[in-house]
């Protein structure tokens, strides 16, 4: 199982849960599985072209997936995924 941490703006879709458990062997597969349990979450994460939205960062075990292999980044049992709004910080 993968543990996914859900940011506040998405908790309306997860029934208020801040952490969910899901299967998946890559980030994109994990998002598909997530959408089966929590309909609507995929549309919030992806833009019209099916890419992760500009203002969302996804981390696997604390590493930004853009430093890994993006949506194809492999996942294994026990991994932790964080979905974090990109708009934060500065200075």
């Amino acid at each position: 199982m993968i543990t996914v941490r859900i940011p506040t703006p998405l908790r309306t879709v997860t029934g208020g849960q801040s952490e969910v458990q899901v299967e998946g062997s890559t980030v994109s597969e994990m998002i598909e599985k997530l959408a089966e349990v929590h309909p609507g979450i995929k549309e919030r994460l992806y833009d019209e072209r099916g890419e992760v939205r500009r203002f969302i960062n996804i981390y696997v075990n604390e590493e930004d997936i853009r430093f890994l292999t993006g949506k194809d980044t492999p996942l294994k049992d026990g991994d932790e995924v964080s979905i974090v709004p990109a708009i934060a910080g500065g200075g």
Partner: protein
Amino acid sequence: MPKMQALSCRECGKEYPTRDLHVCELCFGPLEVKYDYEAIKGRISRAKIESGPYSLWRYHDLLPVEGEPTVGLYAGFTPLIRARNLGAFLGIDELYLKNDCVNHPTLSFKDRVVAVALTRARELGFETVACASTGNLANSVAAHAAAAGMQCYVFIPGDLEAAKILGNLIYRPNVVEVEGTYDDVNRLCSEIAGEHRWAFVNINIRPYYAEGSKTLAFETVEQLGWRAPDQVVIPMASGSLLTKIWKGLKEFEKLGLLDHVPTKLNGAQAEGCSPIATAYRQGRDFFKPVKPQTIAKSLAIGNPADGYYALKATAESKGAMETVTDDEIVDAIKLLAQTEGIFAETAGGVTIGVLRKLVKQGVIRRNDVTVAYITGNGLKTQEAVIDAVGRPIRIQPSLTHFTKTFGLKEGA
């Protein structure tokens, strides 16, 4: 009529109440304060501003707080210095430095944003303030929280300069040193902010906080005698400062306080952390995050929140972006100190180093009225220059020894 009408998503326009929110729940775009500019236009004027307090609060009409300021009453209104020596050296006739090295109380431009953020946080009923910081912001939040009697948590990366760490501890906030880079700190803080009802100034209070940077533009215009410069050079970390300076200039134009904004925005980054400038150079409107490696730690944000908007604003203004190496940063810090008597931190070295390059490239021309933003104080980043400034000349307490050491003739 309240001047703040809503928070609205910069991407999709969805509106939210003016609470502690920073991200659109539909598209994750940034929320911005939506002002009632018609109402503001009716009450703002050059004369009214000129009769205001000698702080950033003279622009209260354009800042996102409801009542009178309660925190950071003396921040802002720093000197705009006519830099004749540096201008002559570089070949610019009219060069100015906006000197936030001497901002009150913690010697960086962050005193502006924190004054606004903490005043707003109090209005929203918060008792605990926090931030993710590369140093200057933490110093400012810690100092203002102490003065305001608020609980405080500051989160910093593990490799900060000694003076920036001490500059937190002295105010006795909870200083949390995170093992990792600023980007790690920032991600962690975003997650913490989701769990605790604290005012994270640059997370859930960010729409208000970031507006404080506009006052750098307002002051520049007023101090130039109500005109906008032709060129500005701005250091970029998250890209927020550059974006807000642009917004400030445009607001003055919209309100009739300025006739025309000819200003070209030039963004400055260190080569070892230049995701925004690299995207600009490659003609992309999106950036790739990087792992920072530079002495300019205050600018070491590899995943800049406002990178996209900084690229947009720079393009809109027909400006440019450039980078400098660590050696060039040190040279530029020394150049500024030795021509103008201003000891800037590494971010100032980045700004002056890039200014120098842009003049050499002909991007900034001799007759362009140019303003460079010096955002932080050199006493906070002494490590960067300690091996590049020589040593004192040590003598015995004797006139003879002194005279001999310097090869001086007595009485000469």
